[in-house]
């Protein structure tokens, strides 16, 4: 990811707005300056990604990276993951699962569906902040395919 041109936009789907803010702050602390678009419901995120129920054609010429929480109040994160990975325009978009669940079945399922990374949010703040900052560093060196 090129820090100067910053063409990659981060799509953050996270229902807890506090978490959302803390994730953003800590990613920024790691020196990531890319645009971050936060969605607090699965519905809003899907509307954005698939242009209101169609497909991901609108983002075909854009580089996106998705941070996805699995425990959403309206839709399951799994459903969103499935949609992204089966969409012809979005299937190469990196999806990083960022959730509290560390259930083995869930982790396997996400990778089976094409998730690019699975990160558990540590449920204590020190660990949380550290993990997000490391994730920020990781994101800053990830290559996202140009369409």
């Amino acid at each position, binding site marked *: 990811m090129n820090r100067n041109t910053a063409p990659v936009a981060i799509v953050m789907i996270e229902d807890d707005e506090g*978490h959302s803010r803390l994730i953003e702050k800590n990613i920024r602390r790691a020196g990531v300056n890319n645009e971050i678009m936060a969605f607090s419901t699965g519905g809003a995120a899907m509307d954005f990604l698939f242009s209101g129920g169609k497909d991901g054609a609108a983002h075909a010429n854009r580089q996106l990276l998705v941070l996805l929480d699995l425990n959403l109040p309206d839709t399951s994160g799994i459903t969103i993951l499935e949609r992204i990975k089966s969409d012809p325009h979005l299937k190469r978009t990196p999806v990083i699962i960022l959730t509290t669940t560390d259930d083995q079945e869930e982790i396997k399922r996400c990778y089976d569906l094409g998730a690019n990374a699975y990160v558990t949010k540590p449920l204590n703040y020190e660990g949380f902040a550290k993990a997000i900052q490391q994730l920020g560093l990781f994101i800053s060196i990830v290559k996202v395919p140009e369409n």
Partner: protein
Amino acid sequence: MAIFGLGKLGTAVRSVSPVRGATPPSTIAPATAILFFVGLSALLVIIGTTTWLSKRSESYFTEIARIRDFRSAILELRAAVQAAETSQRGYLLTENEIYLSPFGLEKNKANRNLGLLVKYVPAASQQDLSLSRLRAVVQQKFAEMEETIKLKRAHRDADVALLLKTNRGKRLTDESNIYFGGLAAYADQLLFRVSEEQGQNFLLLQVVSFVGGIIIIFVTAAAAMFSSRYTRMISRSRDEVNRLNSSLELRVRERTAHLAQLNEEVRRFAYIVTHDLRAPLVNIMGFTREIEESVADIRPVLGSAPQTQDDLEKAAVSLNRDIPEAISFIQSSTQKMDALINAILKLSREGQRKLNVVPIDLLSGSQKAIAALQHRLNESGGQVRFDLKVKTIVTDRISFEQIIGNLLDNAIKYRSKDRVLDIRIASRPVGYERMAIEITDNGRGIAAEDRERVFELFRRSGTLDQAGEGIGLAHVRALVRNLGGEITLASQFGLGTTFTIEMPVTHRQAEVFSQ
């Protein structure tokens, strides 16, 4: 998840109603005894009566034989008299001595039979039958015949004719014939009476046999009926027991399934609660940190800003004392809350863990747990002794080591300051395929009111001079229950505590988790 109680299963099984039998067998026993008694009595009566009747029958036969002899004596006497008369007539007519040869013989025969008659006829009847008169008549007859023979020998034919003309001989013969008839009739009458009595005897024998037979048949039938009824009763009771057994199994299965469902719900609930409770905590902690950092950012700026003295003092107090204090309380409280939620999560996971059941040697398994605590044991100068009557147990290794480890850890932690720590680990068999492990220490003991409470989550007992969250024993109890066991404690405050774990020798995967 085991912490939330498999304990109810026991009561569920126990509440099944007792077996409802048909008529209790206690009424059968007396009935059978009575039947036996009746049957035996009937048999004895039949045997007694038959014996008595056959004895009587025998005496009738003797009687009949006697009467026959009596009759033949009459006939012989008559024949003797007639033969003697024939002999006399022959001599009188021919004067040939040859005719007289049977005379003496017949006379003897007549006398002998007269004697027999007297013997046969009872004294009471002798008068009626004019037996003495017959005797006299027969003797007179013989005397008359001898008289004529004597006269004939003396050739006094005229005297003989004179004597015959008196017809005395004829009269005597006629009279004796009347008596003979009477005696014959008497003999017939006797014979008739005896055979009639014998007939009655025979009839009685038949009646007794018949009645006895009927009683025996009745008794046998009744016994057969009772025995078949009893058999039916037993088979009905057995069916009932079988039915109850199968319904019991069904109920146990239903309850087990229900419990499994409840357990699953509780497990899900605990998992959700711990996850969902922690998410806001992350925010509280995160934003507290943000405030902290913001305050740190503000402090130098505010220090240099032109303000009134009063404002500056107040701001300084807030910035330097109140805000940090508030932040510190929020942080410590959220950390504590986090630790508690963590503890619940740990317990909830314990119930989900798949058990790895293997044979464990109690001695080496315990020593492994001791090794982890060895340095603390050494510090206190304590020792662990073993008294193992059951040496091997088949169960989950991790759970077992955690249970022993936690209990030993507690024993070391809460030892008495006044004496050297002495821990005893004992095992013994209990009932059917179960065993007890006892861990006894000479520590500070647990007060009576705390003995159940110490097993509860976040509860502790005694002086809180040791670090801890009150999780250990709750965790141990969850582990023990998960292995199908139960843990109890006995303690004397100030003297020591014994924890007793009762569990299966061989762990069977509980249906609760497999269904």
